[in-house]
């Protein structure tokens, strides 16, 4: 069964203090790894898809990277509006199984 573990569970940073969030996964053949952002009281919002080891994606202050066993979400010079829970999910190659397996997320707080 696919598994996703995210660390740390919570992270508090000062505004401008860069850091990384970790997502470790086990999957029987990776079709894709996905990062989502979830604000309180809202549904998750898609950020990135990574398909193969070595791939990187960037969006504003966020950069996602992928290895064969884990993914990192790097946050550079964060701002208070980057505060949210960041969820990692994987989709395996089991044909016909479209489900995403999510981790429990990292709750990020950026202090002004």
């Amino acid at each position, binding site marked *: 069964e696919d598994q996703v573990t995210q660390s740390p569970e919570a992270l508090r940073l000062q505004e401008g203090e860069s850091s990384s969030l970790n997502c470790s996964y086990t999957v029987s053949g990776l079709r894709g790894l996905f990062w989502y952002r979830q604000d309180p009281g809202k549904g998750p*919002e898609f950020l990135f*898809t990574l398909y193969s080891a070595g791939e990187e994606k960037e969006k504003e202050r966020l950069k996602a990277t992928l290895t064969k066993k884990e993914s990192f979400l790097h946050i550079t010079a964060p701002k208070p509006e980057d505060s949210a829970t960041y969820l990692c999910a994987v989709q395996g190659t089991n044909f016909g199984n479209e489900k995403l397996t999510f981790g429990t997320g990292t709750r990020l707080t950026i202090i002004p």
Partner: protein
Amino acid sequence: DTAVSQTPKYLVTQMGNDKSIKCEQNLGHDTMYWYKQDSKKFLKIMFSYNNKELIINETVPNRFSPKSPDKAHLNLHINSLELGDSAVYFCASSQDLGIAFFGQGTRLTVV
């Protein structure tokens, strides 16, 4: 114009009652999902429909019954509600691999 909308946003009900949550998407996607997010924020899939056909049915009690009248709608009916059913339920739709658009969630509280 909301892409994935679900109603109601909040639902408080007594144990043993039957309730429904409705979901509609205007994105033209073929696949729709129901996810459950527990108090620890763990998001787990319950059901998936593709073009009105059930394709994923995780180990969910049969008190939960999804219904898809057309590919833009996926409703969730829950019979004989229990305390442990309290959670936030998210509807989502998808066209591309893994890129799901989620609704705002329905916070169900069973008392």
